[in-house]
């Protein structure tokens, strides 16, 4: 019976996915809790009475709140500015707003220190240093810059799917001005999206490591993640180990306390069945309504947040030593030739290989999950995987280390497992979203024509899904390539990734070399990203051409 075998296939698929989730996430986290319970007994009082721990927790919470409070309104404002007005060059702005997340977090933080700290770029060029860039203020600012693209994207998606332009037009036609419409219609409709953006911003700040590490630690500002790193990589006494695993557990506990209630509230409110109008357009033709001001604001944000720091980074990389004036006459590639050695090359090779394997496996895993999700058991699995999205990387790394460290500790395999566990949701979301956007009729027509669920997906859905699959692969590849939170906790001799090499170089205070490595790490991303991006464009083009053809013909006839 074909139906029974299909059901069996689905059930074994769910089972297989379940086993992978159990091994990658559930068992390690349970094991972490168990070890904290056994190892910690007797030490926990000592650990908790340490003021450094309380300070780290307080810093982390304060930082998360401070970043969220600023990044969410900024992101929403950017979304409204780009989707509801006629800013000149909207397409270009939409792309460039994502620049801050294309730069590795570590590199972004490091380049800020090169740009704004004392003896940095603005100090030497304009005599304008910002000394507190090292410390909580700098960490906060860079985290905001890094988070805004995300809150912008979430709000923009909310605008596209929930705030149908006619709803706002109806308010305008009812006599409401632009401000009243924003207050009475747009913002209430966006409330779930904004809440989701707030939770994500809060959680991502909680688990951020690279930026606090590179900008906070030198100034004595510690967070939970940097404390875990310090305890595990520098501490040697059992107490610091207990502190690390306790903090790891505490971090996930805080996350759960924040995420679960909001998720329960948000879950039903974020579900939308309508096809997103991703283009977005001004609801009411806003003849010259401040479009240029919005463009100027966005430009200033990108200039201060990304462009100046990256220019400073490149300048540092081509300047022979600290104190040498960064004028073209002094430029040299010495730093680059110094860092391009066999150690860097090995690390680069390992990073590329890891990212390649991880991205490929993750695309397959994410695709499987997206397909299985359409069944009831699969849906539970998908929810579980989505939860891993907010499982802090530090916690995950510590948990995996405790669970499997004794066999594969310090190997690339353990790092790979960590990537798979952490990034599964990253691969799953775009694929699942693309599957949702398929007109249900297409799959149903395939089923009605005698195709099983997997056959229907393979024959009917794979072609329209291809851009999402490539995009998921690309997101996983880039994220894995830049990953430093887990890699820095899990690497051993001979398994450093390039990101870890850069981090270590920064800790050794080798400014020019670190800058050169950072430039390298950022540019490496382009090697797969450009072809993949072109591939996505190519995959989408026939469809677009097909849609446009009749219009073209009509206009020629007329």
């Amino acid at each position, binding site marked *: 019976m074909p139906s029974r075998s299909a059901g069996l296939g689905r059930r074994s698929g769910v089972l297989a996915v379940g086993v992978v989730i159990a091994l990658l996430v559930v068992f390690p986290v349970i094991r972490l809790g168990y070890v904290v319970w056994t190892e910690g007994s007797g030490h926990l009082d000592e650990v908790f009475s340490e003021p450094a721990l309380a300070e780290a927790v307080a810093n982390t919470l304060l930082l998360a709140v401070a970043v969220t409070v600023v990044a969410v309104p900024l992101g929403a404002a950017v979304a409204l500015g780009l989707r509801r007005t006629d800013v000149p060059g909207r397409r270009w702005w939409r792309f460039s707003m994502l620049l801050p997340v294309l730069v590795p977090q570590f590199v972004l933080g490091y380049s800020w220190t090169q740009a704004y700290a004392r003896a940095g770029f603005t100090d030497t060029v304009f005599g304008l240093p910002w000394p507190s860039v090292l410390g909580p203020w700098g960490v906060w600012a860079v985290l905001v810059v890094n988070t805004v693209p995300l809150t912008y994207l979430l709000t923009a998606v909310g605008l596209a799917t929930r705030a149908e332009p006619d*709803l706002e*037009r*109806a*308010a305008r036609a009812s006599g409401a001005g632009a401000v009243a419409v924003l207050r009475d219609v747009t913002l209430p409709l966006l409330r779930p999206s904004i809440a989701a953006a707030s939770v994500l911003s809060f959680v991502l700040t909680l688990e951020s490591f690279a930026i606090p590490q590179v900008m906070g630690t030198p100034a004595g500002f510690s967070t939970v993640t940097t404390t875990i790193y310090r305890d595990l990589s520098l501490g040697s006494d059992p107490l610091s180990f207990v502190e690390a695993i306790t903090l790891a557990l505490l971090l996930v506990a805080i996350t759960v306390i924040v995420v679960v209630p909001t998720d329960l509230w948000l879950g039903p409110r974020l579900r939308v069945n309508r096809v997103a109008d991703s283009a977005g357009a001004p609801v*009411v*033709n806003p003849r010259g309504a401040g479009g240029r001001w919005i463009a100027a604001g966005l430009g200033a944000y990108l200039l201060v947040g990304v462009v100046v720091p990256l220019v400073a980074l490149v300048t540092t990389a081509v300047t022979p030593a600290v104190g040498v004036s960064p004028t073209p006459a002094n430029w040299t590639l010495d730093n680059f030739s110094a860092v391009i050695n066999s150690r860097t090359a090995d690390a680069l090779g390992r990073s590329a290989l890891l990212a390649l394997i991880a991205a490929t496996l993750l695309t397959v895993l994410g695709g499987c999950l997206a397909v299985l999700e359409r069944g009831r058991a699969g849906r539970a699995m998908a929810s579980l995987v989505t939860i891993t999205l907010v499982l802090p990387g530090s916690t995950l790394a510590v948990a995996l280390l405790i669970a499997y460290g004794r066999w594969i500790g310090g190997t690339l395999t353990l790092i790979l497992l960590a990537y798979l566990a952490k990034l599964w949701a990253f691969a799953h979301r775009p694929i699942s979203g693309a599957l949702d956007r398929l007109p249900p009729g297409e799959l149903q027509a395939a089923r009605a024509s005698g195709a099983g669920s997997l056959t229907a997906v393979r024959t009917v859905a794979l072609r329209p899904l291809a851009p999402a699959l490539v995009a998921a692969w690309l997101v996983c590849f880039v994220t894995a390539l830049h990953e430093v939170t887990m890699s820095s906790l899990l690497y051993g001799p001979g398994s450093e990734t390039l990101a870890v090499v850069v981090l270590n170089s920064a800790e050794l205070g080798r400014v020019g070399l670190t800058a050169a490595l950072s430039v390298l790490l950022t540019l490496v991303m382009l090697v797969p990203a450009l072809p993949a991006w072109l591939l996505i464009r190519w995959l989408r083009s026939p469809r677009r051409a097909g849609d446009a053809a009749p219009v073209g013909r009509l206009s020629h006839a007329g």
Partner: protein
Amino acid sequence: MPADPSTGDVLEVRHLTVEYDGVTAVDDVSLRVARGEVLALLGPSGSGKSTLLHAVAGFLAPTSGEIWLQGRRVASAERAEPPERRDVAVVFQSYALWPHLNAVDTVAYPIRRRGSGRRTARAEALDILDRLRIAHLADRRPAELSGGEQQRVGLARALARHASLYLFDEPTAHLDTHVRGVFLDELVVRREASGAGGLYATHDAEEALGLADRVALLSSGRLVQLGTPQQVYAEPVDLWAARLTGPASVLTAKVVGAHDGGASVDLGGSVVEVDSTGETPVGDGLPLLVRPGWARLGGELRGRLLAVRFRGPHSDYVVDTAVGDLLIREPGPPRYATGADVTWTLSRTWALGAAAPTETKRSLTELPT
């Protein structure tokens, strides 16, 4: 402010052109809506009727041309007033009800924006809901309303605006005739009370002809014909307009003589005297429009039934004649079976292309010879 509110046009559109995304959606359209008048914009999807409506509402700015409301210029290529400062109300195609507001607050919204207090606004909103017979749904949000109920709330919100021009963006497209009748009646009462006008976009000819005082036919953003429902139905400017406004047959016949209000037509051997408005040209191979009621079964002409369709109150007969296929509509159930030899006669025709030869050239080439 209008000088004399009792006379004059509510809306005047002068040479309006609207382009967006590189497409000319409305192309040099001029029209007026008088006080107390409903003008229907009839056209297929993509004909520009929604764009025209959006330009009048203030959602789109003109590329060129002007829009005048109540004798005041509200939009030109240089300056376009925002919708909230135009005296218009809009009923949206997709209802456009705010998911977070219940029915009474939705209807109270335009009243609140006029500056009324919450209590006054709600009372008035309830009154309007009551007139549309949905006062019992006042506390419900859109998700808890059926499509028809949502439609009525959308209409109630527009009525609450007390506008001098009501814009309808194909609002009744998916409603059954009973519900449509109920609130069109309500509208007529409303319109006469406030002396407002209506601009009603639709692709449904029956609705446009039955509801409007005048009908504007739109094709590819251009105004093809503007007239009373009777005019556009009986004297369509070309075959395209004829097909758009209702069922039509085209006979290719020889007109042997024409006089004021009538013509002598040779219909395959016998010459028949028919009514015909306008100036009917004399000649051979002329396309003559025949509406289903303009011919009847029984008479001196011969034909064979190609198809018979029972339509409830009437039956449609498609007759194969010497001058082309002809659709005849008669009351009652079918009297003949398909394939039967029947006789028929013609009482009226309209010579296609008689009214506006320049505009019909395009369509005439599509006619069978």
